[in-house]
Structure formats: structure tokens, C-alpha cells
């Protein structure tokens, strides 16, 4: 059953009560929250996701709740809990929905150690994956969001789950987290984009979540092989340029930005070495999304290069 088959009342009731078992890629998360904004947001963002039954295995048990006491009336807050633990300090109530996404990321990065988890956007075309690693602000989410509506499938805007056995990437297909100006940019260029209410004043500035396009969610079980490692950098007024990058540097940068590179020791190094060996590695500077689309459309898979 998909989440869209629940009525808003059923969804809200499930979230208030026993929880909703949301499937995102290989993980099932039981989410509980009495907060309306969370129910609304989930209805908007996760309509195409499968809901697992109460007897199925659940990977993570999370809740977004409003702490009681004086905070119930004065500057209300939202608190994320992961099976009773509180990895983050509470945030303003208005940030409950982004907090759920950050919390889900946290659940994955703190438990998914069967994968090498890289901090990178992941998109795929014709069976070949482009990994877009980058620090926050490098423009990887905006690029992922735009390309998702222009011929590419989204695997993740943030977490690349790389298999240590065969190097394939497992999709998550969770909403894209967009910040500040990029929210308006996507709204203008992609009229059909479904975007959540903007949370104004988070640690990362204004944040809104973009629903993943239906095809990417439908194909969430399909793993794919990396072909390109592209380090994006948004630079105002720059002409789009794809410049080769040394494989050794790409490896170091990927390792530095990975969530659990050190967990895997030598295996992690071999996995990354193999990855950069098989991939074309590039730096990509851009300011215009349309130019980016054209350059990405011309990327040739490894055999041809």
C-alpha cells in the first residue's frame, strides 16, 4: 500500500498513534508525530512511497514531538528522537519537517555500515550513475533537483550508499532538501515541482523539501553503477565548465566527505580506489542550470570514453 492511499485523517491518526511504517529505499522507518505540519508534509512528499504493515520488520523507530513544560506555550519546539535517544537539541516548532529529514539522514548514517556512505548527490541515466560530492552550499541539491526533472533519475540528494561487495549504489529516493535561493530557482524553472512550506530560519537558512519525481520512487529497488564523480561548484555568472580532476584527489576528497570511511578500513580504501578507477572524475563549475543540463546530457559512459 502507498501512503497516498491513506486519507489525511488516517495518516494523522497513524502518526499520532502506533506510527506509520514508511519505506524509503532499503529502509523502513516507523514515524510517530502528533504535529500536523509533519502529517501535512508527509502527505505531500511521500505519497508514492510504500507503507509497510504492522507485522513487518522496521529498521528505525523515530518520533518528532513537541517537548512539554513551558515550551508547550512559549516558543514551541520540535524534538527528534531515534528509538528513545535524542541526537539533536530541539529546534523551533516551525522546523519540524526538515528536522524529520535530518533525523532520517542521521538514522541512516549512524546505522548503515554495511555500505560505504558518501556525502554526495546521486543521479542516474541509462543505467549509469553520476556521484555529485560536495560540501554544503556547493549546489549539489539544486543540481540534483533540476536534473531529476530533465532526464535523470534521483537516487539521493545527500547520501550515496555504495556497496562494498560490488560497488553499486543503492537508492533512497527521499525528498530533496533545498536551501535559500535555490527554492525559488527550482520553482521558476520547474512549474510542476511539488515543494513543501518553507521553514524560515533554520541553521541552514531557509529550507524547503522537494517531492521526488514518481519515476525515481518507482525504481527505488534498482541499484546502479557509478560512471562519473563530479564535484559541483556553484559560482555566480560563471560559464559552465567540466574540467578533469585527478583520481587520487577525487579519492581523498570522497574519503574526507564520507560518513563512515574509517569504519571500513582497508576495504573502504579499496572500494573508493576501485570507484575512482572506473569513473571519470571532474570538477564542474556552473551558474546556469540549463547549461548544466546540456553538459550532463553529453556525458559519455566509461566504455565509450
Amino acid at each position, binding site marked *: 500500500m502507498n501512503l497516498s492511499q491513506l486519507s489525511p485523517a488516517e495518516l494523522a491518526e497513524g502518526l499520532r498513534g502506533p506510527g506509520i511504517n514508511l519505506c524509503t529505499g532499503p529502509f523502513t522507518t516507523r514515524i510517530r508525530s502528533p504535529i500536523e505540519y509533519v502529517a501535512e508534509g508527509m502527505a505531500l512528499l511521500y505519497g508514492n512511497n510504500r507503507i509497510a504493515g504492522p507485522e513487518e520488520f522496521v529498521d528505525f523507530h523515530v518520533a518528532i514531538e513537541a517537548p512539554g513544560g513551558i515550551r508547550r506555550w512559549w516558543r514551541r519546539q520540535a524534538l527528534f528522537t531515534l528509538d528513545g535517544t535524542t541526537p539533536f*537539541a530541539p529546534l523551533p516548532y516551525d522546523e519540524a519537517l526538515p528536522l524529520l529529514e535530518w533525523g532520517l539522514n542521521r538514522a541512516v548514517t549512524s546505522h548503515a555500515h554495511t555500505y560505504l556512505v558518501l556525502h554526495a548527490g546521486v543521479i542516474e541515466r541509462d543505467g549509469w550513475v553520476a556521484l555529485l560530492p560536495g560540501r554544503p552550499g556547493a549546489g549539489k541539491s539544486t543540481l540534483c533537483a533540476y536534473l531529476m526533472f530533465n532526464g535523470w533519475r534521483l537516487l539521493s540528494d545527500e547520501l550515496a550508499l555504495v556497496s562494498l561487495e560490488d560497488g553499486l549504489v543503492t537508492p533512497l529516493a527521499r525528498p530533496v532538501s533545498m536551501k535559500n535561493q535555490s527554492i525559488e530557482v527550482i520553482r521558476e524553472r520547474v512549474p510542476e515541482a511539488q515543494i513543501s512550506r518553507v521553514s524560515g530560519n533554520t*541553521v541552514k537558512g531557509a529550507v524547503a523539501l522537494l517531492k521526488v519525481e514518481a519515476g525515481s520512487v518507482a525504481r527505488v529497488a534498482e541499484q546502479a553503477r557509478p560512471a562519473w564523480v563530479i564535484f559541483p561548484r556553484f559560482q555566480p555568472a560563471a560559464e559552465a565548465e567540466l574540467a578533469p580532476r585527478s583520481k587520487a584527489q577525487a579519492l581523498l576528497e570522497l574519503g574526507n566527505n564520507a560518513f563512515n570511511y574509517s569504519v571500513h578500513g582497508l576495504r573502504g580504501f579499496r572500494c573508493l580506489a576501485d570507484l575512482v578507477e572506473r569513473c571519470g572524475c571532474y570538477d564542474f563549475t556552473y551558474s546556469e542550470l540549463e547549461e548544466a543540463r546540456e553538459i550532463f546530457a553529453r556525458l559519455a559512459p566509461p566504455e565509450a570514453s
Partner: protein
Amino acid sequence: MSDPRDTLLDALRAPERLPDLAPARWDLLLRQARHADMVAHLAERLAARGLLDRLPEAPRRHLVAAQNISAKQHRDVRWEARCLTRVLGSLEVPLILLKGAAYVMGDLPAARGRIFRDIDLMVPRERLDEVEQKLLTNGWLTMKKDDYDQHYYRTWTHQLPPMIHHRRMVSLDVHHTIVPLTARPKVDAQALRDASQPLEANGDLRVLAPPDMVLHSATHLFNEGEFSHGLRDLADLDALLRDFGSDPAFWPQLLARAELLDLRRPLFYSLRYLSSHLATPIPAEVMELARPWGPGETAAKAMDRLFVPALRPIHETCDNRWSGIARWLLYVRAHHLRMPAHILVPHLVRKAVTRRYAMWKGQPRPA
């Protein structure tokens, strides 16, 4: 047994039944195991029986992930041990590794799937200052900045305030004995050092003798009032005794050392709960000889009402109103064993007050 509160304990007792566990029950098991820091331990128990590959994919992934974490920690401990010998080797001080680090470095079965938060090292009290200076000039920082905390650790406990390495972020506890200075049982640290054994022929690193290792783990579990890893600590003891106990000469040594080091009571409780919870093979005559070391059968039954709930993981699926009270009573008992009232009461009041202010301080923002 199918009390859902004992899902983890049942799994430890009968791992061979796990391949048939229902999916929702797996979920419960992993939640309890995570809160007890025992997912990797469970994975190793299954792997040892060749059962890991017969499990459903979703829970298996969590078990393998935990094994990967545990393997990383063991690598790290080996590396840190090398760093410590490099930094402290010139002092020619006996460096005795304790608990998890000792199990790993000694290649003991108790190391399998063991997760730990810090490295525990014991040095002679009279050399403590030199050791601390060496560590401070080699990248280790002391973690308790507060004057009161510094005073508390140095005056009343058995260790320096915890230290952390400024780059590797590993935390290190430097002990000079295994129980607080103010504690009721007076343990002779010299006796522990004299019996300790070198890890390798020419190295500086040592570990406690097998009976002392057991007694240290026992007193840590039953006298320190900290049950966040109660079941994990009991499993440590189980692994140690199954390993050392296969040599019949071990048992009389264990009893003799418990008497010499004044750690009879914690050994009594260990043997009691090891046989009831994990069916650890303990010779009948050892149980018999340790019986008078308990508080008497009626009092022991009353203590069961505290220890049994406290040995469950701290998790909503194991807790009820009583388990919180039981843990609190054991915490009070531990402090009573640890220090006399004129030191204890002001300390607890101070801690209670400062904790209320510190609640959210220092917790990270999401990223």
C-alpha cells in the same frame, strides 16, 4: 520464556532459534540489543554457529553493520595501544590495560563483538603525575574543566579525570586501582600489579591475571551502580569464565583472589546471575563455596528484585515504573559502597543541581 522484556536475553541464551524469529520480533530484539550495546556481540554469537547467513536480509544487515563497527573499534584500540606505548614507554611504568582494551589486546573470546567507548589503563598511583604530564604533552587533553570535578576525581576516585586525544578523539581513563579510594572494599593495587601478565615478551603492555580480570569486571558491574550496559557486562563475565574456566586450576585461584582482594560479594552476585541468566558453566562446589559470601538467601531474593530488572537493557520495551526505581536504588547502594555519607551527600546534591542546568547544553544541532 517469552516475556518480551527478555527478548535479548532469550536470544543470547538460544541463538539457534533466531533464524525462525518473526520479523516484528527481530525488530524488538535489535532495539533492545542496540540499547545494550550488544548488536555486534549477538552477530558474533550467530556467526560462531554459522547462522548469520540464514537470517532474513533486513535484520542481518544491522548485525553485519555492527560487526563492522566493532572491527573498526578493535583496529583503533590496537593502534591506540601502540601510541600509548610510544608515548609512555620511556617512563618504564607498567601499563596495565583493563576491560575491553585488555580483551582485544589479549585476543580473548570476550573481545568478540565487544563495543567500547573508552580505553582503560592502570598505572601505579605514585607514577600518576608523570604519566599525566607525558599524556598532556603528547596531545591528550583533560575533559573535566570544572574545578570541582577535578577535585572529585583526584581526591576520591580511582582514576584521573577522563582524557581525550585532541585529534583522534579517543577517550582514555587512567586508573591507579580498580575501586574508588573511599570505597568499602579496599583493593590492594600492588597485588593486582604483581599478578599482572605481559601481553608480549618484550612489550610494556600488561593485562590483569585471569582471576583479577573477572573480579574487576564483577566489581564494576555489581558495585558501581551503572547499569546502562548491565547485560553486556554480564556477557563479558560469561565469556571470561567460559574461557578461563576450562582450566580446572582456575576456579580455586578465583576464589582465593576474591578473598585476598576483598571482592567476595561482587563475585557472589556474578556467579548467581551468570548461572540464572546465561547458564554459564560454573562448578557446583564453586557455587557452594561462594554462597556464604552473599547476603543470605532471603536478602539475595530481595536483591533479585533490583538486579533482575537492572540487568535488562534500558529501553521502553523493557522498562516499567519499578525498573526505574530499582536502578535508582542500586545507584544509591553503589554510592553507599563507594564513599562515606559526609562526602557522598554534598556530592549528590551538587550533581543533581548542575545536571538540571546542563540538560541540553552542548548537544549538537542537526547537520
